[in-house]
Structure formats: structure tokens, C-alpha cells
């Protein structure tokens, strides 16, 4: 059993080290490798895209609230606060209109 225990302990140490190294590599790749391409793209288009959807189905609100901060989806909201709008539900982002532009509209 002693040998097996030592092997398992080693396995856990290797596992944790591997996880930490993989995370460190991931951080490095995001900051140093992938970021360049993203920066170039965003500079080129003037900043497009913010939410967890890759095309503006239904409306632009979850794609990029800068382009359309108003949710004019006809199915939003429905009773219970749920929406069938796919960019509203099972994604990791959710943009709500921020009521800040209520400055004095003098025009």
C-alpha cells in the first residue's frame, strides 16, 4: 500500500502542478498571443461586439449594446421575466439598457 500511496500523492502533486501550469499558459496565451489579433481587429472596426453571441440575431443588444442599447424584441419581456430571445437566455452576458443618457436634451 505504501508504494500506491506515494504514487497517488505524486499523482495529485503532478495534477495540481499541471493545472497551475496549464492555467499559467492560458493566461500567457491570452495576454501575449491572442490579444494582438483581437486588438488589431477591434481597432480596425472601431469596437464591435461585447456579448456572448457571434451575430446579431433578434437585435443587437446582447451582441453590442453600443450599436443598439434598446431591447425591442417583441417577446421581451413575457410574464415571469423570461424571454425566448436566444441572446437573452443561456449566455454568459446580459446587457440591460442603462438609463444614464438622460442629460438635458436641448435640441
Amino acid at each position, binding site marked *: 500500500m505504501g508504494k*500506491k*500511496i506515494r504514487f*497517488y*500523492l505524486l499523482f*495529485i502533486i503532478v*495534477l*495540481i502542478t*499541471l*493545472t497551475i501550469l*496549464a*492555467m499559467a499558459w*492560458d*493566461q500567457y496565451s*491570452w495576454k501575449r498571443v491572442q490579444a494582438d*489579433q*483581437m*486588438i*488589431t*481587429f*477591434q*481597432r*480596425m*472596426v*472601431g*469596437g*464591435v*461586439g*461585447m*456579448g*456572448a*453571441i*457571434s*451575430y*446579431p*440575431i433578434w437585435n*443587437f443588444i*446582447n*451582441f*453590442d*449594446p*453600443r*450599436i*443598439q*442599447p*434598446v431591447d*425591442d424584441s417583441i417577446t421581451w419581456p413575457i410574464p415571469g421575466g423570461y424571454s425566448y430571445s*436566444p441572446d437573452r*437566455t*443561456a*449566455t*454568459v*452576458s*446580459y446587457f440591460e439598457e*442603462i438609463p*444614464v*443618457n438622460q*442629460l*438635458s*436634451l436641448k*435640441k
Partner: protein
Amino acid sequence: MNKHLNFLLTSIGNILRNKVRSLVLILCLIAVLFPFVTALSISEGIKFQSLISVEEGADIYVTSDYFGSNAPISLDYLEGFRKMDGVTKVYPRIVGRTYFVNRLATIVGILPENIPPSIRLAEGGMFREKGEVIVGKGLAKEFLLQPGVRFSLSINPSQLFRVSGFFDADASIWSANLILMSFEDAAEFFQMKGKATDILIYTRPGYATKLAEKIQEGAGTSSHDRPEPPLRVQDKTLVKRYFQRGFNYKAGVFTALYTVAFALAIPALLIVSGFGQTERKKEIGVIKATGWQTQEVMEMVALENLIVSLTSAPLAVLLAMVWLKWFNGAFIAQFFIAEIGLMAPFPVPSRFLPLPCFLAFLFAVVLTMVGSLYSTWKTATIPPVEAMR
């Protein structure tokens, strides 16, 4: 110290001895932690891309406000904005949507002057002539596009485009279904000459908020005699607030949902960890009868749980990493990024930050501890003869 080391090694021995129980427990924990780690890492990946989009975007976005919604803005405003103090660059942009065959695509029209001198595309080159466009990798892959291929789009099928190049797949998820063309081509395509969807203003550092207020109040627009609708001005501060709220809210929702899921998983894990509990109870009785103290039994069981958690959490993180990086989040990414189907047409962004991974470990520890410490304590505090029965 030796005593604690003994307990640690014995707890590992116990895990190895009760192979089936340990394996079921570890697999259950991985099954619970894997979607959690996946969701948060995808969220972090998109968040990172989103932050670049915010940081590298314009300082101020100006559109018209038609009945409370964003609306096209006249190009007449450009000159007025350019003359404002603190403004470094002003250019119009068109962002719209149309269908590429049956797939919705984002059209972005920009002035060629805005394109940085050294850009790197996955294939082909930057558009130079009228009708040339750069296409996202998602569209290119789906419709087998090659540089030089000509196509037309709905809304205005009479206008022909020619693929000059493709965006790099890693550019961001929003480049996948995007078609970039010159501002003129976009205006012609949408038949909105003299209009832009928004005007992008770049300012010197520290000027953005003041300028946004000025524009909102009407500065730079006073030369217009004809009545215009009010302007909608979004500065970087507002956009950053969108960014923060948009992600924090959902990350919070996910964490809350998973906390509930974990809470519900505790009884399930109690049952799973009760796998062989009668044998366990007897073991505790025996070791107590041979002179172990309750706290020593608890320490050994806690160490067992810690080892199980230290096995499960890194395995869940590594599995999520392998699944997202090598298999591009097949089947699972669709639950976190809308409308991508079983196999995402672009590299699913995933970023493994220490905090969510640590949180996963913490959840595993809490789950296993709650699942076993109380029952162990209960068993260890009754007379050993009862536990051995």
C-alpha cells in the same frame, strides 16, 4: 507533525482501498464542477475579448435618437465634431445586419483610412477596390469561401462583392460572421447615402466625458439650420458600465445557480458518500475502540475529503480545458454562447483564471465535507460498540 503526516497517508490509503466509492465520489464531483468551470471560463474568455472591444473602440459613439432608439446619423456632423477641442480623430461607421444565404451576418463599413497600416489577416489581403470585402472565418468555413469569390447579399442583391481576405479565427467571436467593407460600399448596400449608423470620436486622454456632455448639449451641431432629431451619445464610461454589468450580472447568476445546484447536490452526495457507509461506521467504531480520538478520526476523514477535492477540482479544470481548447467546447459551449450549435464555427473563447478554479475546489471541499463530516462526527461520538454493531 508525524501524526498529521500519518493521517494524510492513511487517508490516501483509505481512498485507494475504497476504490469504487472514491471513484464514484470523484466522478460525481467532476460532473458537478465541470459545467461550472466551463461556464465561468467561457464567460472570462468573452469578457476578455469584450474588454478589448471596449478599450480599443472609440471614446465616444454618437448616433441619432429616433423615438428613443439609436438611429442613423447624418455625416454633416463630422466636420463639427472634428473641430472640437480635444478630438483627435472622427470617422463614420456603418454597422448593420443582413443575411449571407441563410445566415445572419454583421456588416461593418469603415473608411479605409481607419485601417491600421500593419494588419494581419488569416488569408488574402485588405480590401483595396470597390466591392472588396473581408469576411469572417465562420462564414468562410460554412460557405467554403476563398479569396476572389464573388457574392451578393439580401436587401440589395444587385450589389456584387468580392472576397479579398479573411479575418483570423482568433480575432474575436464577433469577427466570425462579420463582413467588413468600405464605408462607401456599406452605404450603397444599405442605400443610406450620407448617413452612418454611428460616428466614432477618438479624443485625447481625459477629454471624453466632457466632450460627450458638450455634444449632448449641442456643441458641434450648431451649424445645422434644419431641425435634426436629438443625438444619443455614449462615451467610454457608459460602455464600460455596460461591460461590467453585462458580465458581472450573468457571472453572478451562474455562480448563484451553481450554488443552488451544489446545495441540491449535497443530499445526492450524501447518498453517494453513504456508499459503504455501514462499513465505514464499523471502521470508525473499531479505530475508536483501539484508542483513536474523535478529533483524530475527523482529521483523517477531512483529509480524505481534501484529497478527493484536490483530485476532483484539478481534474474538472483540466477536463474543461481539454474540452474547450481541443474539442472547442463541442456540445457544451452552446449553453453559454447563443446560437452556435453543437460545434462552434469559431474558436470558443475560454480563459481559466485562478479565482473560478479555486472556487471550484472550494465547492468540492464544502460538498465533500458537508457530505461526510457530520455523519463521521455522529458515528465517532457514540460509544464504539454501537458504531461497530
